[in-house]
């Protein structure tokens, strides 16, 4: 984690009157995995296209890998790999031929091409079908071929737009593992998705994006504290010794905000950090018998739902007030 490789300042895209992307400011650091989350039509793809110089910037600036995509798109596109939403290949050409075309456009010589393509196809486990036409490929295989293209390019920055949408669970799992490998190699990754649990597993930081604006930005833990108020939910199942009030003791632990007795012997604690150790100690101190202790990590799913519900609610209030 060091200097930023993507910097946006006041980045704006307008189509006539409609503002699709509204004055974005963000930095993505080198080696970081950054998730851009938001409902469909929030302007995620438009933001990506502006970073690649594939659509005009209405106002503001964006710098990608040290270059301005408006002025030097070729330099940017040489360093950035882009996997579009539901990527397409030439169906009548084989996997190798498709990648060879891209490698030629990159300007690689024959030896480099051969070596890199073989290596990339091996990494995404497509070596067996390297000489089959892409027309016979399943959706998952195409998606992997798209990833092979980024690997072959030796991209410093990988931009993945909804990479797992429409994949079956098995393919999704494999695909996410491959992205994880890229991440370990130090590639900076920008990923957009609506499959939140997957993004949560991969991303160092996420941004919630709606109506062309970034609403909150930070690590999943930070977002949980901001949006949910507290990030950790600890379930305690314990039989208390007679005469000892367990709920009060649990509530006295530092960091616990709320204790709820959900059944005779189960308690739900909401806390700003993981309080399992303290909770166990408290039960033992009260001579109780601890039978179960578990923690729910803050889930991005919950944050996302909660956040957009809150938004909708405030908007509703404003509308009602008016």
């Amino acid at each position, binding site marked *: 984690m060091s200097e930023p490789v993507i910097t946006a300042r006041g980045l704006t895209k307008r189509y006539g009157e409609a503002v699709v992307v509204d004055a974005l400011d963000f930095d993505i650091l080198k080696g970081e995995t950054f998730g851009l989350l938001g409902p469909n039509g929030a302007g995620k793809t438009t933001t990506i296209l502006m970073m690649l110089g594939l*659509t005009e910037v209405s106002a503001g600036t964006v710098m990608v890998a040290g270059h301005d995509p408006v*002025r*030097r798109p070729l330099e940017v596109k040489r360093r950035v790999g882009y996997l579009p939403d539901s990527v397409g290949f030439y169906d*009548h050409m084989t996997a190798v031929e498709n990648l060879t075309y*891209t490698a*030629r456009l990159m300007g690689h010589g024959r030896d480099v091409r051969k070596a890199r393509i073989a290596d990339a196809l091996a990494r995404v486990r497509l070596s067996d079908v390297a000489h089959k036409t892409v027309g016979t490929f399943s959706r998952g295989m195409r998606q992997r071929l*798209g990833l092979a293209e980024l690997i072959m390019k030796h991209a410093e920055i990988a931009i993945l737009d909804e990479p797992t949408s429409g994949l079956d669970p098995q393919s999704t799992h494999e695909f996410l593992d491959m992205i994880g490998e890229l991440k370990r190699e130090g590639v900076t990754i920008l990923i957009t998705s609506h499959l939140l649990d997957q993004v949560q597993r991969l991303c160092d930081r996420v941004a919630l994006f709606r109506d062309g604006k970034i609403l909150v930005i930070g690590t999943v833990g930070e977002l949980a504290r901001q949006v949910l108020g507290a990030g950790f939910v600890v379930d305690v199942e314990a039989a208390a010794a007679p005469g000892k009030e367990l709920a009060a003791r649990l509530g006295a632990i530092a960091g616990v905000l709320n204790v709820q007795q959900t059944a005779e012997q189960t308690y739900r604690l909401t806390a700003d950090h993981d309080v399992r150790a303290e909770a166990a100690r408290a039960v033992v101190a009260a001579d109780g018998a601890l039978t179960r202790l578990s923690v729910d990590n803050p889930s991005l799913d919950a944050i996302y739902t909660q956040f957009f519900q809150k938004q909708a609610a405030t908007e509703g209030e404003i509308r009602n007030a008016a």
Partner: protein
Amino acid sequence: MRREGSPWHGLGTVLLKELADHFDSARMLLLALLMVLAAAVPFYSAVEQLRTTTSEDPFLLLKLFNPGGQTLSVVAILGFVIPVVAIGLGFDAVNGEHNRRTLSRILAQPIYRDALLAGKFLAAIVVLAVNLTCLWLLVVGFGVFFLGVPPSGDEFTRSLVFLFISIAYAGAWLGMAMLFSVLFRSPATAALLALGVWLFMTLLWPMISPFIAVLMSPPDIRYQLLGIFDPQTAAWQQALSRISPYLLFEEATRTILTPTTPSLGPLLDQIRQLRGEVVGAALPLRESLAIAWPQAVGLVAGAIVLFVATYVAFQRQEVRA
């Protein structure tokens, strides 16, 4: 704001890939077959007709292309078929990439859109040129074989000029097909519209334009009484007819291929008669070229204008599917 880097970077790669695609495709094979078969029939009848007059005719090779009179000629058939082949090669050039979702992936590589579009256009032009050249070689070769008379240098040059004019004609139609492939997201719409324009220009316009000419400039009663064309009306008619690439092609090839009967339209014929020239005498190559020059340049210019329109439309288009 100026962008940096060469717009032609990647052009060669795109060109080679598109060429390979064309030559591999079944569509290309069908279109080439269509062209050869369509030309074979008038060619055969021209040979049959010429066999009887071999000794008398100084322009045998040219007669193979355009026997004159009422017979269906290779040139007339080509004027009809070349647009179909050109449209067939161009109608899905850009929207096809959109629909296969390859466009955003390819444009995310370090090339400009310029290279992609120019590469596609050049590849199709090369394919058309190769096809037309093959056809030309077939006609010349079989002509010599069947008639047994080698062509003179003059004839050979004229037929070469004809080849260049046909390629320019193909380029104009290709430009239009590619423009539609950028403007319309659906290849079917683009193809139908291009074929519609083709039908209009080749069949309807030659019939409609004289009427419009009369409307624009009603002929003077004095000329009508004398039974000759009003030069004003004739000028209008000629100007209008030249909107259609088909008529431009027809006019240019007729001038080049039939030196003996250069009927240049009612207007020029009248002028030449007034100047005391004999209509029907053979024109030297240089003069034929001078007469056909504006039409040939018009076809090249049409191709360039349509390509530029395509280019502008493509640069402004959104990439996202």
